[in-house]
C-alpha cells in the first residue's frame, strides 16, 4: 500500500475525551457539539439512557455526573472530560440488581419502562442523601421526571420499599399496593 501524500494537514473534527463511565475509564471521540445523551447512546452504545424531548423537559435522560443527577440532553459531551458518569447500566452490581431496581420490578413501578432509568438514578441520589425519605421528599426529588403510565404511585411505593430494605429492614410491599384496598 502506497502512503498517501498529505497535501494539507486536515484538522480532525472530532473531540476526543477521557472520562469514567460506570466505574470504567473510557476514551471516546465524537462531533464536538454532541450532547452527553448522544455520546452515551450513539458513541458508547449505552442505550439504557432514554430521551423523551431532548430539551431538558421530561427527565427521561437523567444520569449521574459525579454522583448528582444531570439531564444528559442538556450537557455537552466535551464538558465531561475527566468526570464520572453513572447510567442505569451502572446501577447493577454484576448480576445483582440494586434494591431500587428490585423494588421497581416487584411493584410494577416500570410499566412501559421508558422513564424508569432516569427515575431510578434520581431516586438513588435521594436515598443516598435521605435514607428514609417521606412521601413529600420523594415527590420533590422526582418532580422533574415525567411518567405517563403509572401516576407515580407505584414509583413512590417502590422507592419507599427500597429505602426500607437499604436501611436494613426486611420490608415487604403493603397489601394495598398489591391487591388494592379492601
Amino acid at each position, binding site marked *: 500500500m502506497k502512503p498517501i501524500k498529505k497535501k494539507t494537514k486536515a484538522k480532525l473534527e472530532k473531540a476526543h475525551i477521557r472520562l469514567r463511565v460506570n466505574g470504567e475509564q473510557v476514551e471516546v471521540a465524537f462531533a464536538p457539539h454532541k450532547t452527553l445523551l448522544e455520546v452515551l447512546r450513539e458513541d458508547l452504545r449505552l442505550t439504557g439512557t432514554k430521551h*423523551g*424531548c431532548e430539551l431538558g423537559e421530561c427527565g427521561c435522560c437523567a444520569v449521574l455526573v459525579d454522583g448528582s443527577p444531570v439531564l444528559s440532553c442538556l450537557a455537552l459531551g466535551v464538558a465531561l472530560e475527566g468526570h464520572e458518569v453513572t447510567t442505569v447500566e451502572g446501577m447493577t452490581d454484576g448480576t445483582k440488581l440494586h434494591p431500587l431496581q428490585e423494588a421497581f420490578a416487584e411493584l*410494577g413501578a416500570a410499566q412501559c419502562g421508558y422513564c424508569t432509568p432516569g427515575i431510578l438514578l434520581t431516586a438513588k441520589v435521594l436515598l443516598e442523601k435521605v435514607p428514609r425519605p417521606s412521601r413529600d421528599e420523594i415527590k420533590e426529588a422526582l418532580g422533574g421526571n*415525567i411518567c405517563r403510565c403509572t*401516576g*407515580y*404511585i407505584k414509583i413512590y411505593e417502590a422507592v419507599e420499599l427500597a429505602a426500607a430494605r437499604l436501611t436494613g429492614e426486611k420490608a415487604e410491599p403493603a397489601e394495598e399496593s398489591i*391487591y388494592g384496598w*379492601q
Partner: protein
Amino acid sequence: MAGNNGAKRNGLRVIGKPFPKVDAKVKCTGELKYADDLALPRMLHTKLLRSPVPHARIVKIDASKAEAYPGVKAVLLGKDLPITFGALPVSEDENALAIDRVRMVGDPVAAIAAVDEDVATEALDLIEVEYEPLRVITSIQDAFAHPEPRIHEYGEFGNIHRRQVYEFGDVETGFAEADFVREDITFYEGSTHLALEQHASLAQFSHDGKLTLWTSTQDMHYLHRHLAKVLGLPASHIRVIATPNGGGFGGKCDPFNHEIAVSKLAMITGHPVKICLTREEVFYAHRGRHPVLMSTKTGYKKDGSMTAMHHRTILDGGAYGGHGVASTFYTGILQPTTYKLPHYRFEAVRVFTNKAPCGPKRGHGTPQPRWAQEIQLDRIADHLGLDPAEMRKAHAVPPNSITANWIRIGSLALGKCIDKVVEGSGWKEKFRKLPHGKGIGIACSAYMTGTQTPIYWNKLPHSGVQLKLDRSGGVCVFCGSVEIGQGSDSILAYVVAEVLGIDPFDIRVVTGDTDLTPVDLGSYSSRVTLMTGNAAKQAAERAREILRQAVSEKLEVPGSRLVFADRRVFDIENPEKGMSFVDAVWLAEEKFGTLGTTGSYKPPAAPGKYKGSTIGPSPAFSCTAAVAEVEVNPETGIVTVPKIWIAHDIGQSINPVLAVGQIEGCVYMGLGEALMEEMTYRGNVNLVHKFPSFLEYKSPTTHEMCDVITYLVEEPDSNGPFGAKEAGQGPQLPVPPAIANAIYDAVGVRIDEIPITPDKVLKAIRAKAKGQEGRCGPTVFPTCEMPPPIFVRTPFEGGDGKAVEREPELSRK
C-alpha cells in the same frame, strides 16, 4: 390477603397472584431495546421536511440541491409514494408525503436519507417548496361555515367528514314519559398521548427482496397490510417487528408516514434507514383525543331514572380521517351501557380542520360523552334532591342484559363499585357538608373489553397463539400482541403457566413479529388480556391434553385424575405418583413427535343487526365508580385534587398489582385531562400548535398527582379468560366528571368545559357572585343538515335488532 380475590377462591396458582412482569427486570436495567435503541451497520438517518403552513397547494417543489448535498443518499417526494393509506378502510386519505396539497402545519412533504442526522437536517433547508395558501379551516364552527375549500374530496359534503344518526326506540315517546327534561351543552378539549418514547422506526431491505421494519407501533398487523399496499410488496416479503413501546395510549395505533418513508428509503438506498421523531414532530403525529362539543338532552323521572336521551356530538377531527369514523361512533354508542336508558337518539358529526389529526386516545371517543352525562346526572340529582351516588346505583345497567342499542352486557357490578367508593371516601359524611372551598364528587362508567369487529372486514380470529414445547421442558409462547407497558407479554406467560402447572418465568414469550408470531390485531380497545388470554388458554389446554395422554398411558392412571401443578404432573389420588413437567414433555414428544399447539379467539356475535351495530359490542364490559375530593381556591380559581377513590370491576385480575397499576395510570391521565392537558392552536390564521413541547403542554407531575385508593371488584365474566375483563381504559372515564362534580360541591359552580383551568373556575365564581348563572362552558350548539336516523326498536319493545322503517304516526310526533 385480599378478601375479594377470586383467585384464592378458585384455587388458582398463578392467576390473581402478584408476580412481577416477565419483562420487569430488563426494564429496570436498561437492557430492553426500544426502536431508537437499535442500530445497524451502514445505517442512514432520515429527517422529514414538514409544512410550515396549515393549508396550501404545493405549486413547486425542487429537491435538486438537497440531492447534491454531500452525505445525502436519497430524497423522497410525494410522487414517489402515490398510494394512499389510513387506519380505516373508509378513510384512506393520507399520503406518506404530501403530493400537491398540505393540510396542516407539520404535514411532511419530503424525506431525506443521509449519513447522519446533522447532514439530513442541513439538507432539509435546501429543498425549495412554493406554497399557494388556501383558506384555513380552524374549528368546528369554521368547518360548518365554509364548505370550500374542501380539505378532502371525500366525505359527506364540504368539510363534513362523517354524519351518523341513530334512534333506538322512539325518543319523543320517552321524553313524553319524563317528569322533567333538561339539555346541557358541554365541551371536552382535545389532548394528546404524550408517551415518553418519541416514535421511531428502523427499516432494512435485504438483497433477497425482503423488508424488515422495527417500529414503535401498537398495531403491527394493520401496519403490515398498509406497508404492503403502499410499497407494492407482497405482505409475505415484509416483516414488521413491533418493538416494546415506551408508552402508547393509542398514539401508536395508526400507520404513520414516517414508517412508510424509511421503508421506501431503505428499498431505494440499500442501506438500513432510521428515523426518530422529535418531540415537536410527535405533536404533529398526534391522533389524540378529539375535541368534542356535545348537547345532551335527557328526560328523567322524580326517582332519577331516565326515560330518554337525545345526545348530539360534533368532533373536530383535524386534517385526516385516521380512526375518526370509529371515534365518531364512540362519542355516543356506549352511552347506554352504564345506566338504564329505554329510548336513545344519537347524532354525531365529524369535521375536517387544518390541525393535527385526532384519533384513538385511552378510552377512544368515550371519555367525552361520559363526561357530558356524568356532570348532567349530578345536576339531575341536585334538582331532584337525591344523593347522586344512590341515584346512580339505583339505575345502573343490570348484569346479563341488552341495552337499547343492542349491546349485550355480561357481568357488571357497578353497584358494588359505588358501594366501595362511597364507603371508602366517607361520602355520606362529606357530600354537601364540607366547608366552602372543599368538595366531593362522584361519577361512574362502563367500558368494553375489546371490540367485536376487526378494523377491516374478515371472519378470521382476532387473536392467535402458538405454543412450542420441546424435550428440554421449555415452553415458548408466540403471539402477535404488542407490549406497550400494559403487561401483555406477562399475561401470556401467566395464562400458560396456570394451565400447564409451571412457573411463569419458565416460559419464554415471543411477541410482536409478523414473521414469527400468529396474528393478533394489536394493543387497542382494551382487547389484549381477554383475546390473547383466551387464545393462550386454548393453546395451553390443547398442549395439556397431549401431555395428559402420554403421562396417563405411562403411569397407568386415568387422564382425568392427572393434575398439572408445581412443575409436575401427578395423580390427584396419589400425589407421589407422577413425574416432572420436563419428563412429561419428553414422553409426549416420544409418543407424538414434535410438539406444538395453537389457540385462537374470535368474539361472539352481537345481537344487533342494523348498519353500524358492529361498533360498540364487546365480549365483556368492565365498570368503574370514582369519588374525587377537591380543594378550590375561590380567589385564584386553582383546583387541587388531594385524593381519588376508585373501584373497578375487572372480572378477575390476572395479576392484581398490574391491574392496580393500570387503574392508577387511568386516574393520572383523567386528572391531567380534567385540569390541564390541552392540544390547542395559536391564532386563527396560521394555526400553529400552541405548545408542542413537554414543558408547556401541561401534564401532571408528582406535584399535581393525587393520592389514589383503588378497589378491585371481581365479578367474573364468562367470556373472559378465568373471568377477566379490562382495566387499562375504562377507569379513566369517571375521573374528569367526578372532579367537575366535586368542584360544584366545593364552590357551587359548574364548569362544563374540559380542561378545568383556573380562569374558567374564576369566571364562573365571578358570574355567580354577580347573580348570574355560576357556570363556564359553551352555550351554542351549531347544527348542520342531518340525514334521517337509522331507526331500531329496542329489546324492551320487542325489537329484533334490525333497523325498521319508521311508522308515519311515530315520526310525526
